């Protein structure tokens, strides 16, 4: 990988070169007028200048509420929806500039698992064919015997019976279908899996099995995961590091336990406090941080800090202090006492001028 000339936020000094490195990623969608001409009348910045790294074998949890840009990020990372600007470096190669043929080869190394196991499998072909498809596309299926063996092995890897391979997707339950989706993603032996809400459509008793499977696969195959989810409990369980998004920006990024036990950004704090815990005794003693209002439109985000319109911290500030929130966009950097920006290379970063570690759980 080129020495991080273009990437001032590059970090992890001692760690090996990250497998995936996203730098200043921006993804815009046009707003068009209604009518025949559909003239472009504006632009929505769904993802607004975000940067993060994922090392081999690591899981980065990307969390946030609907509309925060987490799914758009996952698609831009895979170059399924090309980024408007910024870089996506996979193993040092920039996907946003690479040629078509190279991109196809790179895609082997990065695969996607979708949220809805009912919509993401072709209902008209058998499971064997579904799993074999990526192998055929990339010319790796080999002769019939070898190809079948690969498919059978993949079925077994995800905990399905290979003899069920000639069945159709509708004959499987939700959890089994999600396993099929994972087997398909694993077919090309990728190094990075992008998992977009992989368990949120499943019942809890089934969900646990799929989470365990993902953890086992990671241990065995050394996969890196970009785990996109809205369920923070699942993310706390599976992720090594967590990035919290709000309105197209990463507002806090840090190692899992640090982020959950000592969240610094008021949004992260509110988010964690809102998650119900399945323990009535704890629930009775918990304090909820209730946010006011709704998420503003990403077409017209607030100036300065995007969270200030709903921020409980903002309400406690003096008018002079508030000016900074209104005028100046807070950077995602390490924060010392009083929210003082410290190091760019800190492992735990928050984008808040007045960041302060609070224990919410």
């Amino acid at each position, binding site marked *: 990988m080129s020495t991080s000339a273009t990437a001032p936020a590059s970090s992890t000094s001692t760690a090996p070169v990250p497998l995936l490195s996203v730098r200043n990623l921006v993804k815009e969608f046009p707003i068009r007028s209604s009518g025949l001409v559909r003239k472009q009348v504006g632009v929505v910045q769904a993802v607004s200048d975000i940067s993060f790294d994922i090392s081999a074998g690591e899981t980065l949890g990307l969390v946030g*509420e*609907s509309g925060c840009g987490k799914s758009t990020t996952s698609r831009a990372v895979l170059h399924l929806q090309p980024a408007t600007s910024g870089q996506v470096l996979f193993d040092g190669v920039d996907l946003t500039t690479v040629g078509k043929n190279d991109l196809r080869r790179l895609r082997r190394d990065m695969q996607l698992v979708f949220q809805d196991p009912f919509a993401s499998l072709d209902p008209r072909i058998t499971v064997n064919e579904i799993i074999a498809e990526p192998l055929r596309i990339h010319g790796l299926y080999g002769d019939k015997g070898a190809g079948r063996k690969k498919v059978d092995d993949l079925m077994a890897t995800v905990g399905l019976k290979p003899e069920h391979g000639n069945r159709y997707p509708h004959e499987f*339950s939700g*959890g089994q279908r999600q396993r099929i989706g994972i087997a398909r993603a694993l077919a090309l032996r990728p190094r990075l899996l992008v998992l977009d809400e992989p368990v949120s459509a499943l*019942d*809890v*008793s*089934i*969900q*646990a*099995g799929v*989470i*365990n499977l993902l*953890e086992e696969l990671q241990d065995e195959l050394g996969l890196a995961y970009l785990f996109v989810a*809205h369920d*923070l*409990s*699942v993310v*706390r*369980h*599976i992720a090594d590091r967590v990035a919290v998004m709000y309105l197209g920006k990463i507002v806090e990024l840090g190692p899992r*336990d640090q982020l*959950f*036990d*000592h969240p610094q950004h008021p949004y992260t704090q*509110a*988010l*964690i*406090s*809102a*998650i*119900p*815990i*399945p*323990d*009535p*005794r*704890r*629930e*009775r*003693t*918990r304090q*909820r941080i*209730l*946010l*006011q*209002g*709704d998420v503003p439109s990403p077409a017209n985000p607030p100036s300065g800090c995007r969270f200030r319109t709903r921020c409980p911290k903002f309400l406690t500030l003096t008018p002079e202090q508030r000016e900074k929130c209104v005028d100046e966009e807070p950077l995602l950097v390490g924060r010392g006492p009083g929210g003082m920006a410290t190091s760019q290379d800190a492992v735990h970063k928050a984008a808040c001028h007045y960041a302060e570690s609070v*224990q919410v*759980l």
Partner: protein
Amino acid sequence: MSHEPVPVPSLGVPAQEVVLAVRDLTVTFPSDAGPVQAVRGVSYDLRSGEVLGIVGESGSGKSVSSMAVMGLLPKTARIAGSVRFKDRELLGLTEKQMTDVRGKKIAMIFQDPMTSLNPVYKIGWQLSEAVLAHNDVSKEVARKRALELLEIVGIPSPDKRIDQYPHEFSGGMRQRVVIAIAMANDPDVIIADEPTTALDVTVQAQVLEALRAAQQETGAAMVLITHDLGVVAGQADRVLVMYAGKPVETGPIDGIYHHPRMPYTVGLLGSLPRLDQRSQEKLTPIPGTPPSVVNLPPGCPFAPRCPLRTDICLQSEPALLPALGADHEAACHHSDVLAHEGAMDIFSTDPNAVPGEGPDAAPNAVPGEGPDAAPPNENGAAQ
């Protein structure tokens, strides 16, 4: 019924008037594959002012049983049993008689606020309609009541919002409007079917707050149907756990969460990742999948997935019997086994799982516990 404010997580409520008594409710739908027994005998008492949480996974019959109570199922459904609201039997009422009860005495909140509001009428009109349907008052009075209701559920600037259409509201706001409509006639019972499932967590917290406000304001008893064990933990006084169309365990909330006596409940709690635990223990999923309710084999419907299964489980279906005090009932032949040590680890495949701690061991989830305290509570499932 009393209108004194109900303390929010009202535990140990003294025996109060039963407002809704459901007995042996069964619902069967015809299908090509044979009759689908969606609900196979549900009984519960709902006392005034209390919140009963009904939990279960998809297909467990939790929604259908409540639709049956409301008389909202299609004509093809065969419903048997008894649903008594105070002294009145609701099953078998004509549509006209039911209309008198529905919306006035028993209100319902549905999962999807997008479809439960009419997109072509203003919010104020829809709220007033609910008031006018059951009260002989002027439109002005109804509108005033509508404003009040919007205020209670926490809609900012209600005087402006009242003249807007549903599409001008966000999902969470719409659900609050639905809650306002539900409380319009001061009902005695509110049935909320997955009221926050479609919402983001911070919005969910707002809506749950509105729901609590509505309950306090009306003093209504509430049936809260959800698949989210976290939501129930924070809201309910008692819980009914359903599996394959039947309640398998019921009791006061603390008992169910801390001393479950039915393996399915144990499995559900153990398969949940916990936000408040650093533990890197593996989750313990329940093996297998729920049975189809078309042709249930004899015996306990959970037996094929149950680690405690013995011959008797495959032969006879256990009845719901007192398991831990008269108030806590479980449908399991082996519920006494779960009273002993290591009960929470029955699903654990890990031979090294902490066995010793019985379910009675005081949970170490005490407020003061710093996050830096090393994780002594590694037996994840145990609390």
